[in-house]
């Protein structure tokens, strides 16, 4: 089996690169963390990798809007190599700020058409402030290679601009019909509900999106922050200890494991 190679993209203000690299390594990938300036200088370098991850942080201070400046940089310098990356059957993951970048660059939910940028965006939380809290997510699709269908997972969010909105109800219906919705925020029993179950006021409780291929995933919650048992907020309680015994993979690791397994199987 060939070694899976992943690249974690760094840029000014990105700050979740180390733990994202660690999570990918735990999943068995060989990982390089590379500054965007190096990729712009040498676009062909992307060809060496099969997974690219846009990690969380505050790229360029989230100036103008979250992820906007980095998205603009990608549109004007890297859209072709990224298009090719996806067309080659490789995987793209955007977490938190990385998700915002993918949406604002038009890579999610659609396929780099300028139109999808005019239909879906991510904006300020209804609460008007940054919040760090844990949320339950249920998958909404079977086609996204990162996701274990049917498994409810528990991850933390940490953002001020995570509310997904669509231009109108028609755009929302299209997202549903084309199976772009990857995850929804739910409560412990798997039901949708208001704040804080849906922590930012996202339309239809949407927490993450995938593209038409199912090989691009973006989500606001942080899977890389739940890759060991002791990151769970209640790991010190009996019920978590018992659950952890049954279910050996932590919820966040499922995303990284699935990505690496997919590449191992298909490349």
């Amino acid at each position: 089996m060939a070694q899976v190679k992943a690249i974690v993209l760094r840029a000014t203000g990105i700050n979740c690169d180390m733990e994202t690299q660690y999570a990918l390594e735990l999943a068995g990938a060989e990982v390089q963390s590379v500054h965007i300036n190096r990729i712009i200088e040498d676009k062909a370098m992307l060809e060496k990798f099969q997974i690219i991850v846009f990690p969380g942080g505050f790229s360029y201070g989230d100036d103008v809007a979250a992820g906007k400046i980095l998205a603009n940089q990608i549109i004007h310098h890297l859209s072709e190599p990224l298009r090719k990356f996806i067309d080659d059957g490789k995987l793209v993951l955007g977490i938190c700020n990385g998700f915002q970048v993918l949406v604002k660059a038009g890579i999610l939910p659609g396929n780099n058409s300028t139109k999808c940028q005019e239909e879906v965006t991510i904006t300020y939380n209804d609460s008007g402030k940054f919040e760090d809290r844990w949320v339950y997510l249920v998958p909404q699709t079977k086609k996204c290679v990162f996701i274990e269908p049917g498994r409810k997972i528990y991850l933390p969010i940490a953002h001020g601009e995570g509310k997904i909105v669509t231009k109108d109800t028609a755009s929302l219906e299209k997202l549903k019909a084309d199976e772009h919705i990857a995850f929804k925020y739910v409560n412990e029993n798997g039901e949708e509900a208001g704040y804080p179950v849906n922590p930012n006021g996202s339309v239809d409780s949407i927490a993450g999106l995938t593209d038409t291929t199912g090989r691009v995933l973006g989500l606001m919650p942080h899977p890389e922050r739940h890759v060991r048992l002791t990151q769970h907020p209640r790991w010190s309680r009996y019920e978590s200890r018992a659950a952890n015994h049954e279910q050996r993979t932590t919820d966040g690791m499922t995303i990284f494991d699935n990505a690496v397994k997919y590449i191992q199987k298909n490349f």
Partner: protein
Amino acid sequence: MRQWRFEIFNRAGFSDVHGSSVLEDIRELGISSVEAVQSAKVFLIEAEFDEDFAGRLGKELLADPVCEEYYIGRSAAPAGLAKATLIEVHLKSGVTDPVAESVTAAISDMGMAVNNVRTARKYILLGDISQSQTETIARKILANDCIEDCVIGNEAEPPSPHLKPYELQIVHLSLRNLNEDELTALSKEKDLFLNAVEMQAIQKYYAELGREPTDIELESIAQTWSEHCVHKTLKSSVDMSIDGEQVHFDNLLKETVFKATKQLNKNWCISVFSDNAGVVEFDEDSAICFKVETHNRPSALDPYGGAATGIGGVIRDPMGTGMGARPVANTDIFCFGEPDKKLEDIPKGVLHPRRVMKGVVSGVRDYGNRMGIPTVNGAIYFDDRYLANPLVFCGDIGLMDKDKCFKNPQSSNLIIVVGGRTGRDGIHGATFSSGQITHEYETIFSHAVQIGNAITEKKMLDVLLQANLAGLYEAITDCGAGGLSSAVGEMGAELGVEVDLEKVPLKYAGLNYTEIWISEAQERMVIAVRPENLKAIKKIFDDENVESTVIGKFTDDKKLILRYNGQEVANLDMDFLHNGVPKYSRKAHWKSPELAEPNIPEKDDYNDQLLQILSSYNVASKEWVIRQYDHEVQGNSVVKPLTGVNNDGPSDAAVIKPKFNSDKGIAISCGMNPLYGDIDPYWMALAGIDEAIRNLICVGGRADRIALLDNFCWGDCTKPETLGTLARAAQACYDGAIAFESPFISGKDSLNNEFTCDDGTTIAICATLLISAMSLIDDINKSVTMDAKKAANLLFVVGETKNELGGSHYYKIHGRLGANVPKVNLETAPEIAKRISTAIADGLIVSCHDCSEGGLAVALAEMAFAGGVGIEADLRGLPKGNDCSRIDTQLFSESNSRYIVEIEPENYDAFASLCLNLPFGQIGKVTEEKILSIKAQDGKAVIELDLDSLKQAWQKTFNW
């Protein structure tokens, strides 16, 4: 060149969260006539592009295509709204505008050059608002006078910020013929904050040199000798009278706090009280460093900016310790006036405590979160004596290589300034923070406010870590108080320095050489680099767009030589600069106050009192604050600040796991209780130490690897009675450190926290000692949390409850202080800490919580509602002193060194044998029924409340 104006509004149907939050603030201010607020972003772009490109810019970059729309030019006032007031907030000229910088870069990515970008915010207030209300809203909510200007109405654009270039003019000041009064007057006129004795020492130095000082020399001396930089008061000799008994200290700090560290002489202490942070061993390869700073004055003037630069500044301390550490956790502790204070009771020149609190929290949030450093521990304390002098303590912990804990600058090394550019911001910050403030300072010292930009610091951190790994520099330090003057001056103290000031990169033209030298512009570090490494290190910086500039070199003549365009503007002896400050002798006085215990009638039950204490500002849940901080970035969290079955109980301390490949952890905590200081600052300090240590122990921290930090925030210590309280606290630091064998590794003081109101009255803060603490955890998998876990488990109290309600929250809700301040038994307290730590390491304890503010009753309530399980307690099992017969004393006494632990029944024997000879007893058990009940000796319930009522009381106060 064409000036383009873009206005970005929310599209109809999409919520305007900024407008709504401004409206909420206006309502809080008591103005009800504003019906709605619309907010807009404004971009002023000076460039040679055409209408087509302007349209693309609006559509593709400036406005969100879904939820926003753009106008080119000025939008008309919204149709159909007769009463609309427009307010635009612009940055003052020279203030850094990071968004403008990002937009400039983004437009260049789109293939277009621009000459200048500025940003502003526009607010449209709807409703019938008077002119004075508009001005109040502008001043109190929308803009900060220190850094922003308001344009009210639809008038002209504010002036362009282009500033004139500076032309060199060397200024000499004449000291030779001045008498004492004239020297003092000069010091005051130039904001030097030097007293007559210091001015005379300077006069004498220049008389010997046979010349007069230049302005920059005098400023360098003032910065270096400021209270903020050299801690004159704490290092002075003190003649003290303690209740009539005379004590003498040659050097107060050296004979108390330092002395304990020296005497304990722990081999795991690597670098203490010498570098920017204290350094201790972590494991075979790594060390950890910890520093806590205050940023009080800037936060009083500009809560958001002051707190942001407070956290930004303290992060640079570990970054500038040894050869540089990687920050792994932040802490923050605040002291504010009570947030429900009436507007008319706020003195002139003081911001409302609610505004201060919101601003400070947002500042720490925005800077800390952007840096990608988890904020894991903190506390907030409320007292009206903090009204005019809020206290903002920010801490940072860094991880570093054990073999890179020391710097080694050498002569002929190049001096390189890295990171942000130098501007006029923060001039006189070090001296300003050393004096008292008055109602006029808002205007006089607006230039002392620093402007932070976390992203500049983050990208500087990224490249410095790479340069450190590559071994490309010899020394590093941060530009903090005193700017380049302090950073370069200290690094070259044993060598000598030559700097060409015109080489320092500036944010804008017009700064004179002195401003360049003393500016406290943020996000700058200074490194010493061998000339042969220059190319390699520059490449690392350039590769990630971080500016770095050679500004001079280190020499070996022990002189400070400063030039501007080749002309010498300063030539000072390093020895005089660093050792010339006159030594002080001060008088201190302590007389135990004559206080009495109140006579509060006993009651049948204490449900109301418990609920009232749970709702009180100091005890109530701070979840509103904690959730705004990212406490999980870096993936290192183990015990989070909020814990329990619903993730909302109050953790005693944070635990982090700083290395991916090791299960070794760090526990981080703090302790502070200013109310006890009103009775006796000695016991206040010991209570702070005991509390910080208890918190570490509760999560599983090792008792033999505890390191402490002190932050003294006091009033005017030229008053003997004020210095007396400080000396008393310092003595307690010595006694506590020795008893717990826990050395102090770093400390800082902020004195003169007094405010003179316009009527001449003075508000001094209460004596405030913050103790921060950290310890190691050998295996983080053995950490425990404070939430009660499972029905049928047993609950024990370890540690004795005494008649110690003085300064307690129980007395506070009765409006009384009392006399019996909680003391610390220096023999049993460390022993209890050790045994609990061992019991946790042995896996005998499933939850552990200490008794602090509100005593036993509050601690039991917190354990129960955090765990979502009931507790049945019986006061007959409480280990207590003979003087402790009253029920309210047993419930609410704040005696130190007490822990409540939850044990599984099968571990009873092992735990009991471990606690042999300690005061301990079974207080009760965990139950299924969601009720806290505490029974008195006669079997009658004195507390009986369901968990929902308890939790609601605790959560409602800051449900903002």
